[in-house]
């Protein structure tokens, strides 16, 4: 215990921020899963994304932090909120939470956790630690990111547009109502 306290005292300001953000992220993530009201879940998920963006900023990945907020918290969560508003929440929809689905969720989540732990423990995946000599604070900035994305990773980028095309067509196919159909 005293060893832990000593370690805690040795932390820098960044270290404290990391712990605060990590704890907040975990708490809000737990809230996402446990909240009864799906709107609360969505709001908690937004809070989780904010904590993750804080982590990105601590890692000096500023562009990624902003994109995380704009795309995940600002766009995808709006879509989630729309979907939830479509559902009639008054009807207690317990049928979607059968024991089978709960079991499946636990198994899938557990497998993911095992996979992540093995990845992080693997020798080949060891991430290099902070090195003040080779450290360049501009690495994660938008200028560098852009020049790499649009020269070395141009194929994935162009393929992403094909993905968008497919997603658009898919959304239209699923959601389009012919003239005269009811719209809900």
């Amino acid at each position, binding site marked *: 215990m005293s060893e832990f306290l000593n370690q805690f005292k040795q932390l820098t300001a960044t270290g404290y921020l990391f712990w605060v953000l990590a704890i907040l992220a975990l708490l809000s993530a737990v809230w996402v899963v446990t909240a009864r009201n799906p709107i*609360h879940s969505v709001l908690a998920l937004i809070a989780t994304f904010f904590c993750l963006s804080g982590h990105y900023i601590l890692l000096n990945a*500023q562009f990624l932090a902003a994109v995380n907020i*704009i795309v995940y*918290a*600002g766009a995808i969560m*709006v879509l989630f*909120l729309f979907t939830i*508003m479509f559902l009639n929440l008054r009807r207690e929809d317990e049928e979607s939470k059968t024991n089978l689905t709960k079991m499946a969720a636990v198994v899938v989540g557990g497998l993911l956790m095992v996979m992540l732990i093995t990845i992080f423990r693997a020798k080949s995946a060891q991430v290099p630690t902070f090195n003040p000599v080779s450290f360049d604070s501009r690495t994660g900035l*938008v200028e560098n990111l852009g020049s790499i994305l649009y020269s070395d990773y141009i194929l994935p980028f162009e393929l992403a547009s094909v993905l968008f095309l497919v997603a658009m067509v898919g959304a239209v196919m699923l959601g389009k109502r012919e003239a005269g159909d009811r719209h809900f």
Partner: protein
Amino acid sequence: MDLTVLLVKGLIILVIFGITLLIATYSTYAERKVAAFLQDRLGPNRAGPFGLLQPIADAGKMFFKEDFIPAQASKWLFILGPCLAMLTALMSSAVIPFGDSIRLAWDGTNYDIPMQAIEINIGVLYIFGVVSLGVYGIMVGGWASNNKFSLLGAIRAASQNISYEIALGLSLIAILMMTGSLSLRAIVNEQATFFEWNVFTQPLGFIIFLTCAFAECNRTPFDLPECETELVGGYHTEYSSMKLGFYLFAEYINMFVSSAFISSLYFGGYHYPFMNAVHDGLTGSLGEIAGHNIATAIGTVVFFAKIFFFIFFFMWVRWTIPRFRYDQLMNLGWKSLIPLSILNVVVTGAGLLYDIKYTTWLIVVVMVVLALTSNARAPKSQAAPQRA
């Protein structure tokens, strides 16, 4: 960042925060006075000289109203809605560069502290992020009220905001291509000379951005989320006391902040013609430090003059243009503004490849010609449709 700089930054934030609230408060007064002026009335003139105390009286009234929560509403979400709207509005002012820099002498060295709460590399993305979060306050509040009008208003507001957000983002791209930086201060400094102001190089982008700013603030002619004739009060039908006040207040803060963004993105921010001559003259006659600080102050005053003009413009439009119909609103956003802003990006890019900055005037000229010829060809009877 050492503690002194952080303290000064904290002070700047506090001042900007106070100014934001003050301007938002007096925007309500200005709105009523401008409306009165445009409609040949007097406007508020009872509370204090020229009715100047009216906003304070209004705020007091708001505080002493009953803080009403409908029985069928989701209580915490109902409270959270206006708080979120206010929070996003208050956070957005952080990256605006209000002036050049304050110069302080300390131990013989000069420290230049920029007149900006946070000077970050991704300023434009910060705005974009805060704008994209603005939907939640309205959506959460409208849904939590459990009222049909509120829900309809909230959904309208959300679809409108997200539709115009795309065109807003796309119209900014052209500026970024010319500047090559996401920092707002860099964008402002790029416009140091008068004819380099982005409104001259990007006329179409400016019009698209202005339209989208109106839509994002839910101002007339885009105020469908709260249109009285169809939806009573829209998303804030069930709200009372300061919770309603927060929604209204957030709208005025957003108006102030978008005016500030329009001025700094397209109208040179704190720059004005012959600025360098004024700066050199002042530092020459008053000394390095005092002269620089006074020059900064003049720049800030100029910046605020630009902001006030745009706030007035928001109000002017409100009493001039009628509200859109919903299909017109969506068609304008998706079928006109998005293709136009993509065209704007492409034409700007093609011009920049040959180092020509003013290519987008081409689109403007073509559009004006098209508009004039199509107007001449339009049959007269369509202008005044007969009633069935």
